[in-house]
């Protein structure tokens, strides 16, 4: 495995080192002593795997296309911004605005996430993104969602802590959100309908969660013990009546 020591290295130099290593054909890269460097994996292509030790900075995996990033700690904001394909696995919590405009690939987070996660995700047939959050999420989860899959598990919650904040799925007009446990209609955007998953949904859930469990060393049976609820848009045109023509 190719190793890079990120201690004290400026983000631009660190990311150049990573790009150079991939250009040189390295398939597995370990980046040690990461401490807040921005843009790791930004715009990277190809099927290399990068293991990140330490806490990476904002905008990790932005525009990424095919690479796998595994973070052994917490991560910060804006991960997988407009990511096209590939995978990000985070063995901890992560911050706000994750997967903004995400177009494909997978984002697996073991712990909790902040506000506006999975907003404006897109999808077209088989090209569709998936985000799985093991813990809880903040407000505006899945806002303006236009495609793809968001799964929220709420594992290891302390009593009284809600699984998700308010304005869930506001402006949603495509894709699907799966929440483990029941969902209060009052926290959802007006554009969202709540239903039980059907057989097709169960297939999607099982497939996504099997991979999630494998990545983060969890047991699928434990997760599947509780029922899921599915959130879908009630209208393709949530604002169709807003205007006078």
């Amino acid at each position, binding site marked *: 495995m190719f190793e890079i020591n990120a201690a004290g290295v400026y983000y631009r130099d660190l990311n150049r080192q990573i790009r150079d290593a991939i250009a040189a054909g390295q398939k597995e890269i370990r980046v040690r002593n990461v401490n807040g460097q921005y843009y790791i994996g930004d715009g990277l292509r190809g099927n290399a795997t990068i293991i990140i030790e330490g806490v990476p900075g904002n905008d990790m995996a932005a525009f990424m296309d095919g690479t796998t990033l595994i973070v052994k700690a917490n991560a910060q*904001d804006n991960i997988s911004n407009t990511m096209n394909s590939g995978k990000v696995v985070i063995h901890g919590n992560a911050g706000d*605005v994750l997967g903004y405009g995400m177009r494909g690939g997978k984002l697996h987070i073991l712990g909790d996430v902040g506000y506006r996660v999975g907003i404006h995700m897109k999808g077209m047939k088989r090209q569709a993104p998936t985000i799985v959050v093991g813990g809880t999420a903040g407000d505006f989860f899945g806002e303006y969602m236009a495609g793809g899959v968001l799964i929220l598990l709420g594992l290891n919650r302390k009593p009284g802590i809600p699984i998700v904040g308010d304005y869930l799925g506001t402006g949603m*007009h*495509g894709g699907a959100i799966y929440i483990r446990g029941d969902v209060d209609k009052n926290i959802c955007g007006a554009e969202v309908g709540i239903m039980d998953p059907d057989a097709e949904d169960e297939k999607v859930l099982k497939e996504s969660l099997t991979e999630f469990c494998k990545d983060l060393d969890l047991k699928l049976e434990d997760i599947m013990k509780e029922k899921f609820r599915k959130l879908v848009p009630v209208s393709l*045109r*949530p604002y169709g009546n*807003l*205007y*006078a023509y």
Partner: protein
Amino acid sequence: MFKNLAPPEYLATIDQVKCIRCKRCIQNCGWGVYSWGGDKVLINTSKCVKCLRCYHYCPEEAIQIVDNPTRFKQNAYWGYNNIRNIKRQAETGGIPLTGMGSDLPYTILFDNLLIDACQVTNPSIDPLREPMELRTYLGKKPSSVDVEKGKDGKLKLKTKMPPQIKIDLPVIFSPMSYGSISLNAQKVLAMAAKECGILMNTGEGGLHEDLLPYKDNIIVQVASGRFGVNPDYLNAGVAVEIKIGQGAKPGIGGHLPGEKIPLEVARARMIPVGTDALSPAPQHDIYSIEDLRQLIYAIKEATNYKPVSVKIAAVHNVAAIASGIVRAGADIVYLDGFRGGTGAAPSIIRDHLGIPIEYAIAAVDDRLRQEGIRNEASIVAAGGIRSSADAAKAIALGADSVAIATAALITMGCTTCGKCYTGNCSWGITTQRPELTARLDPEVYAERLINLIHAWEHELKEILGALGINAIESLRGNRERLRGVGLDAQTLDILGVKPAGR
């Protein structure tokens, strides 16, 4: 029965004696004004928008579109639009939409500015027989340059130049997305940009593969909907533009109506067919200048440091915002003024928010100079540039280049009817209906747009010649060569322009 209490704006009329029943009008009207009644053409004039497609294609000149003499009672305070919009809102409870730039009679500063010319004491230049330089480079310029002697004894540049975008004249095309306009209209822009050595801009709707041959003349845009953005897209053009705002609708996002989202557009944007394409008002990863810097550098990291443009609407505090944008690392600041066009905007927003581009150029240029960072970014000014004279005045006020959209669409047949949001454009420009878009033959109309750009090029050279200067860069920010007519002292002060006669 209470529908349409506003009388139709226009009366479509057919001279039944001249009409040869060829039905071309029925075929050409995208609005459904005409239908066949068995022995003659029937007219539903309430649908007419006066785009004049039928008039142009009537072989007998039998069609006339006249302003409806039946109007609301003349009232100097309650204008036609005020009354009509209230009636529409009473019917629908909705927000009236509109297209194009604002047509309200606010003062047009361009029309109150005049350009200097040489007489006797300083020679003018004849651009037909002497070299005249319009070439412009967009991008960061170093604050100073170092040179060193090479091994061959010749001087060479030691300073590393930031990336520059070369344009043959300082008139480029404003962003218009695939979705808001047809692919054929985008092709017209791309072909003309390539031929004229200038730029077109994808807007926020992805880059269709048919435009790839023109990529060296394309700026790709990243906006709040992030439509069509992937690493290939970011790296395809000569620069990437982050769109924060638009002059026609500052502070609000975009809803491309579902009527304009057929499969091809849906695929480019990766959203379901027939949904409204939502571009949120803010970009939720940008709440501050620091956040903007983060996205600018995320894009630079992903593109091996291509130039990044940041487009904002001209608003009250535009100078301070532009300063922040430059400090955030942008290579180009794109200012879009109050008169800027749109494919769809609430008319209440279009007609009442923002400031005209003339003020914004002067304020931003002043501020960047005062702060000593004017060289750090180029200024592209847009929002109502109607002629090469407007362009010259904008450049004299401080812009590096202007951008045009409406003027380019007019070469494709647009008559500024302002109904772009309906998706029925009979000229095939702001529509996705295949029978309408097929009318816009890219090669034919590219020729017309190329003609326009060449004509403006000649005119700009004539203006420079009259000014006695032989390079556009001598006009940039040269407000001494402008004079104001009928402007008050404070406006002149803001523009940095003397009154005519001084």
